[in-house]
């Protein structure tokens, strides 16, 4: 009997998700024991052509990481969707754009300018890439950039979401176990569209720091203070995103004295993560005077960056769909 087929792909991403999968240690042997790996560019050689030749729905599990930055990303996403039974948006980039999605603050001209003409680039002739070029042998092409980075589900239908930058290894291991168990008929997969490998609440749920009613007179940057190791970071004026960020990481950052930066994305049912952050941070400001409120807010140096670091491409205003519908 042939083993279920497994695929993993990286679109606009950093590769950290692949490392995280390898980081599940001996569980990787279970993956090998239970699956036949048919496509995983970072780990084995394969061509798109090979995938194109597979039958539709023949891949059982596809972990897709990375956002949709160009037409190649979209092409592979659509291809793998067609060939896969279970398509998982794996990691923050695929779920909500992540760091590559921050490109949505700028338009393509600005991005290309930054890449090709800033001081750090040696480009005296001010050259820019062309997406196609005619040579005697024919036409050469490179992928065309999308005006906005899209998340995976803005391009194809997604079965499950697995957040994190990257997803925590223990969560990956648990999901692998679950899928294997489901294939063996001893467990059931959650309903389509569910978020897997994460909690239903937010990071505070797993954070052991003590917390009180929050009233803040000043926001400060973590590098300027020595945080109290016992008390909630936000109460100390350190802009910690844990309040709005989905649980599942065991409060990894706050537990070592660093603020949560929000890589697990919004909690269940939230439309716009940044909007939740705005409401929450504004709620703890202890002032009723407009000037003082502004002064306190000056402590948040880059609010949009703070609130949308991981999910700009999933946001209402700078999302990949861009018209908010």
């Amino acid at each position, binding site marked *: 009997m042939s083993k279920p087929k497994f695929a993993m792909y990286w679109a606009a991403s950093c590769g950290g998700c692949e490392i995280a999968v390898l980081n599940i240690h001996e569980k990787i042997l279970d993956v090998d024991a239970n699956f036949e790996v048919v496509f995983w560019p970072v780990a084995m050689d394969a061509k798109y052509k090979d995938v194109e030749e597979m039958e539709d729905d023949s891949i059982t599990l596809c972990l897709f990481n990375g956002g949709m930055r160009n037409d190649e990303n979209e092409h592979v996403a659509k291809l793998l969707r067609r060939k896969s039974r279970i398509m998982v948006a794996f990691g923050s980039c695929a779920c909500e754009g992540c760091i590559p999605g921050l490109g949505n603050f700028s338009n393509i001209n600005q991005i290309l300018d930054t890449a090709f003409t800033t001081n750090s680039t040696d480009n005296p002739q001010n050259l820019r890439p062309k997406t196609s070029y005619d040579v005697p042998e024919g036409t050469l092409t490179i992928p065309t950039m999308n005006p906005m980075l899209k998340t995976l589900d803005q391009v194809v239908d997604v079965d499950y979401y697995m957040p994190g930058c990257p997803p925590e290894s223990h969560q990956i291991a648990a999901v692998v176990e679950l899928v294997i168990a489901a294939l063996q008929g001893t467990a059931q997969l959650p309903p389509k569209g569910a978020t897997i490998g994460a909690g*239903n*609440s*937010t*990071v*505070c*749920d797993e954070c052991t720091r003590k*917390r*009180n*009613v*929050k*009233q803040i007179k000043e926001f400060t940057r973590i590098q300027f203070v020595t945080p109290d190791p016992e008390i*909630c970071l*936000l109460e100390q004026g350190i802009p910690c995103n*844990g*309040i*709005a960020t989905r*649980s599942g990481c065991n409060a990894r950052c706050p537990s070592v004295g660093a603020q949560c930066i929000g890589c697990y994305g*919004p*909690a*269940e*049912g*939230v*439309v716009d993560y940044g909007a*939740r*952050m705005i*409401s*929450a941070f504004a*709620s*703890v400001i202890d002032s009723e005077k407009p000037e003082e409120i502004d002064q306190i807010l000056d402590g948040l140096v880059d609010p949009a960056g703070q609130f949308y670091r991981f999910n700009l491409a999933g946001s209402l205003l700078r999302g990949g769909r861009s018209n908010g519908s």
Partner: protein
Amino acid sequence: MDKKEENEKIGVYVCHCGTNIAGVVNVGEVSTWAAENLKGQGVVISRDYKFMCSSLGQELIQNDIKEYGLTRVVVAACSPHLHEKTFRNACKGAGLNPYLCELVSIREQDSWVHTDKVAATEKAKAILSGGVSRVVYHESLEPLHVPIHPATLVVGGGIAGIQAALEIADAGFPVYLVEREPSIGGHMAQFDKTFPTLDCSACILTPKMVDAGNHPNITLLTYSEIEKVDGYVGSFAVTIRKRARSVVEKDCTGCGICWEKCPKKVVDDVFEAGMGERKAIYVPFPQAVPKYPVIDRVNCTYYIKGTCKACEKFCPTNAIDFAQEDEVMTVEVGNVILATGWDLFDARRILQYGYGRLPNVFTSLEFERMSNAAGPTGGSIVMRDGKTTPKVVGIVHCVGSRDKNYNEYCSSICCMQSLKFAHLVAERTGAEVYNFYIDIRTPAKGYEEFYHRLLDEGTHFVRGKVAEINDATRLPSEEGKLVIQVEDTLTGNQLRVPVDMAILSAGLEPRHDSKELAKLFGISCSADGWLIERHPKLDPIATMTDGIYIAGCVQGPKDIPTSVAQGAAAAARILGKIQQKEIALEPIRATIHEEQCSGCRICNNLCPFNAILFHEDRMVSEVNPALCQGCGTCVAGCPAGAISGTGFSNEQILSQINGLLLLNIPKKEAVKA
């Protein structure tokens, strides 16, 4: 877009409101448009009708609900503040949950404010589309029912509070009447005569005080203050601190020997307005209820020096207890009436009127005490030396009122009070009296007649705001007098009126601690400090917090008849609630979903009604539905999206926004192209 819409059958009703709407909005077009374009949103029938709120209009909806099996109804007519209840009840009558009906306003927000018929019609479509998109996400709601504890707390034992307490007690229900001073009676007990009938204040008030004191259903807690309020309508738990009187009430007979023998005299700043003295052990006035005295520990020699105890020595029943401690008690009540009254405007703040510097400038309360037969002068109207009768008296209106520098509002009672003063001065001293007024305001029953009586009595009326009162004389005729400097605005002349005595008709101000009171009971205060009623016209007795009512001057300056009426009205409202044994609350409430709550405590400081509770053990927050007023601030504030609000849910509002913008999208494309 959703399956949700596919399962719904929505009826749309567009009202003409005669020509009020139809005169500007093409009602037929809106109705037809909705039938054609909002099918995808679940609209199965769309009609327009002359008057939707008429019984025929309502029947139209009811018949459709039955015939077409409508699951939702949207009415486009007037403001929901006018007819939301009407249409909800109509739906209820046809078996549809009333909260599945949405009323959108195309009159106040559209036809009445726009003239461009095309634009107004397009806007009506957008508004209607918003309502249809929203109603899909409405839920069937049931009012919350909570039982009503039959006892009532009345805070403040002035005339409003006494009246309220008596009404409820007479109806057979228990009342706790809490008063900060040693006796009930309030400001009215300080007055001699009441306008406009000039009946004796004590004669009409004292019987009510005695009734309140003796009533089997009234627990009188004087010399007491509210410390804490927990709970919600139907079951408040109120913590009251009964301050130590140093007198054992059950032993005291009120015979008066103690205050007769007490050697320590104290200027009485409260009841006598600084005009008279009392002892360190005292009852504020002879008719005080209860009759038990209080030892003023700040001034009592025993508490200062450790010796004296004259009162203890002479007390025939051994009722003095120097070691008595405050008693803190918690009482259960279903409703609360706040009737804490007013403070007098501090006339010292107006330096140019010289009060506090010029001895013969008096405040209205000082004059009240002076004219009172039981007061410090035995009712003689005399100058500060205590013996000289004034020959000319000037009464200054609107002191601290109707003045942007102090209080902008009109204190409402000062005109009549000043007229009363003028009458009493003339009657008792034969002095010449001047009234300096901005406007004479005498709008209640018998008031204008009283004003004419004064005019007939020969009182001078000068229309003008007094600029200054001083003792710097310029003419021999002014020697030894106070000079009132004023412009007579009727003749345009600058006047200098020499008088012997000036009475400042000082305005009414909110109690200095009204803001703390409001906070304690979770209600709101205007910027001035008056407590805010639920509706300025249609509900001046209730507040935004269910179960908390206001009566008398705590709500704003008013005269005795109005205060009494408000006290009685508040009592009547509460009696109605007690009779029903339970109360139905609007089901617009917030709920925290425990499994999603991370216990981050962001919401904990967002609720001014203390409805959000944090459970340390489970590390989650919870909303107490009976305390929640449904403002939705916590819903918007929750970073985890763990709080939902009925009636104004995220889905409802977001989908309404979509609906409002439905028409907009083709326009945008056109502009782009």
